[in-house]
């Protein structure tokens, strides 16, 4: 078996026992990457895989690491929205095609301190806006389980790389479901931590009050280990939580006897695909059989979540992306002496359609005369949605739901209907609105063999219960 097929935990073991060298694993990954490029329907998970730069990271690791490092030099693939010094960070956009990061994101610094080697920048929907990885200027990403299907998005490259053994483990980002949804569609594990758990310094911002970096991995244990490596307070991020970080791997394998699991009516209504429903219900049964108590709950403001998300997130995005003008960095796509024209042309040519759509939407909702009716109102509804969850978590420890109403659909089949695509985010966006931690764990497959994920949501900073429950589901669904 190629070393690219190892789980993170196994790779760490082999590295610790000196059965393999870091370079061996990287070589196997690189070969898999090359083979994929030459295949008929390439997965295309990577935007860049700079072997030279990765080798330099390995050297740096050897100089500074101690034998006790958590990850032992295991290579981790990184979504191309996270700054790694010396790499191109393109966010899958033309406007950043030549941008080289001059600094490391804090999550990367923590990863390196824990002995992880950032290896390769992963494909994604441009600026993290999308659910299918069809919005990339570096080509689409294909689902390894079925190459005609989308891998999900926006961390499509991350989920596909992990599922297709083009990486051992990956870091993605989640603003409205961008870790959980592709993880569910590719049949791997992914967790979005509590807002503020992982530093956002160095994560190119899409929506500042929603974004979080998180692991996408082959197993729940791998996810716990990787989260341990990157979590923690960062003084450079004012929204970083000064909360003690935990040894998440210790929760893997612990019992969930007596834990209460809430099943919200609103997440199992119309629009949910039958086969998805069946798989999810199966996952919930696994939890019950392991001793958890299941009860129905209500999250009555769920139906406003999509509108609320798409108003606030795009408002923040319209402001966050205003810096991309091609003047100081990034790509200058025209030569002109007219300042106005410079802005218009650079940005119109540099951004893809979905990004432009969201910037327009966000600009509108913040504009004079509309701010109160849209942005302000949405913020108030956001508070109601948060309250919904707070009340629910007074009664339960976890909430279990589907991740996506549909499994992976055909590439290209929803591109003409952006609104339809937005509606498919219904189960994931409420989590980001409330800043809660949530994970997707594989709980079954459709008759076509397409993976289904079960979403587990916990209260702020209770990643522990998520790992406990996810391990049970992972076991039971094998």
């Amino acid at each position, binding site marked *: 078996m190629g070393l690219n097929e190892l789980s993170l935990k196994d790779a760490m073991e082999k590295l610790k026992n000196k059965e393999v060298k870091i370079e061996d694993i990287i070589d196997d990954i690189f070969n898999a990457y090359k083979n994929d490029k030459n295949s008929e329907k390439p997965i295309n998970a990577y935007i860049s895989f700079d072997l030279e730069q990765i080798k330099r990271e390995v050297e740096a690791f050897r100089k500074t690491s101690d034998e006790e490092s958590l990850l032992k030099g295991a290579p981790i693939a990184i979504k191309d929205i*996270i*700054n790694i010094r010396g790499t191109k*960070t393109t*966010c899958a956009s033309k406007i*950043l095609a030549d*941008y080289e*990061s*001059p*600094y490391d*994101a804090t999550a990367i610094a923590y990863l390196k301190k824990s002995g992880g080697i950032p290896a390769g920048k992963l494909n994604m929907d441009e600026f993290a806006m999308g659910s299918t990885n069809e919005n990339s200027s570096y080509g689409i990403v294909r689902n390894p389980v079925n190459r005609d299907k989308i891998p999900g998005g926006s961390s499509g490259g991350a989920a596909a790389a992990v599922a297709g053994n083009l990486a051992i483990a990956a870091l993605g980002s989640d603003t409205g479901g961008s870790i959980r949804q592709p993880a569910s569609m590719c049949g791997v594990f992914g967790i979005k931590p509590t807002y503020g758990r992982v530093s*956002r*310094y*160095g*994560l*190119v*911002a899409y*929506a*500042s*009050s929603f974004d979080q970096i998180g692991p996408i991995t082959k197993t729940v244990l791998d996810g716990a280990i990787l989260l341990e490596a990157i979590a923690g307070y960062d*003084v*450079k*991020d*004012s*929204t970083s939580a000064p909360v003690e970080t935990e040894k998440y791997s210790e929760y893997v394998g612990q019992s969930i006897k007596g834990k209460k699991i809430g099943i919200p009516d609103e997440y199992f209504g119309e629009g949910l695909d039958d086969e998805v429903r069946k798989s999810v219900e199966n996952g919930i049964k696994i939890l019950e059989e392991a001793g958890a108590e299941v009860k129905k709950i209500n999250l009555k403001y769920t139906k406003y979540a999509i509108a609320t998300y798409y108003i606030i997130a795009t*408002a*923040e995005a*319209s*402001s966050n992306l*205003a*810096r*991309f*003008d091609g*003047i*100081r*960095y990034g790509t200058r796509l025209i030569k002109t*002496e007219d*300042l106005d024209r410079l*802005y218009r042309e650079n940005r119109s040519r540099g951004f893809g359609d979905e990004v432009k759509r969201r910037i327009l939407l966000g*600009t509108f909702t*913040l*504009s*004079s005369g509309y*701010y109160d009716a849209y*942005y302000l109102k949405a913020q108030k509804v956001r508070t109601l949605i948060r309250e919904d969850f707070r009340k629910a978590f007074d009664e339960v420890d976890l909430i279990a739901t589907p991740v996506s109403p549909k499994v992976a659909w055909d590439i290209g089949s929803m591109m003409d209907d952006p609104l339809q695509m937005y509606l498919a985010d219904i189960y994931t966006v409420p989590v980001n609105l409330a800043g809660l931690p949530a994970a997707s764990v594989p709980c079954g497959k459709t008759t076509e063999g397409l993976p289904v994920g079960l979403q587990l949501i916990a209260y702020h900073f209770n990643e522990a219960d998520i790992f406990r429950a996810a391990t049970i589901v992972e076991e039971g669904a094998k």
Partner: protein
Amino acid sequence: MNYEAVIGLEVHVQLNTKSKTFCSCSTEFGERPNSHTCPVCLGLPGALPVLNREALRKGILAGLALNCEIAKYSVFARKNYFYPDLPKAYQISQYEYPLNKNGFVIIKDDNGNDKKIGITRAHLEEDAGKLIHDEDPKGPSYVDLNRCGTPLLEIVSEPDIRTPGEAVRYLNAIKEIMQYIGVSECNMEKGELRVDVNISIRPVGSKEFGIKHEIKNMNSFANVKRALEYEIKRQIKVLRAGGSLKQETRLFDQSKNATVPMRTKEEAHDYRYFPDPDLVPVILTDEEISSLKEELPELPEPRRKRFVKEYGLTEYDAENLCSSKKLADYFENAVKGYSNPKKIANWILSEMIKVMKSQQVDIDSFLVKPDMLRELFEIIDSGEITGKIAKEVFLDMAKTGKKASEIVKEKGLKQVADTSVLEKVIDEVIKENPKVVDDIKGGKNKAFGFLVGQVMKKTKGKANPGLVNKILKQKLGV
């Protein structure tokens, strides 16, 4: 029809913190372009702001000194617009919830009476960078971001100002206060203080506001006065001729001593303000605020009043001494334990300032320290030296930093009051100037002064003038 002007001033004060508002880059002025920058103030993708505590502290001190209510809850907001000197394409400022509001300063109106000028708000924000245009209008423009991110306090006055004179006195009051509490030197040439003016005119007695005009580009208090004088005349002229005014922004043109309409089409900006999601609200307690209040030094107004009362100075002298905190401090140190503060006040305001000006030094570098000045006066009072000699001694002290007593000793400048010595000199002078003696005896009293002068010349100015007069009169029998 008589018109009155209604004027409001918007003053931006640069706070003299060592680092910028949201990052730790140095705020040092005049360095090599773009040498004091980092990912945060460059607005690089992924960078995040962290509030500089010292900027907050200085902002609160300023608010207290301006008699404002300090907000216990204030919020940073993004002001969004595109311009090459604004790397993030938004400025972090404050909008709905400013740090300070509802304050006032007291100035003198045109009749010398106390008048309160209201301060609507004084909020914190970051400065933009600088654009340097090539001499050739077709040439490039250069962006220097050293200044970008420096903390500013935007002070907005109520439209309580009625004349150009009041406007300048208001500016001086603000400058004084900021210097006194040590948050800014308010040097306009260094950009530490900037002014924009809002002015409208209305019939005297009317309660409604006229058409508001904004005036920008005044680089000195004198130019503010000139701009206002011109603008008032211009607007009244238009109205008296039966014309109408429209709301506009005008620039002060120094070469014409006039205001001109802004050429560029200035559409009303929609800044789409919203709370910055990268920063948390600033929460202050009563204790924190009152502890800062105790840190405030005595402010100019109360100090002036105390100088008049305690030291018996005129309002004019008190005002001049208190125009700079350092000068007022110097004065108070110099008169400690001295019985005639008025004498020292006069000396400081005339001799000392003259010498400092000719040396081109500021009070910190001036070699005559307060206790040295006091010693000089004690020597004068004791009769050891004459008033004339004292001026010479003072000059020497300023050049060498030596004490008065040292200099008098070294140069043998002690006053000659020995009558026998004086008599001898006077006899000589009488002998040498027979014609003058005759003139005096003949009734020409003016010639008397000439003889006194000759005695002073022969004694190199050291003769006690009173004694000379007495003895000379005796000898001449006049």
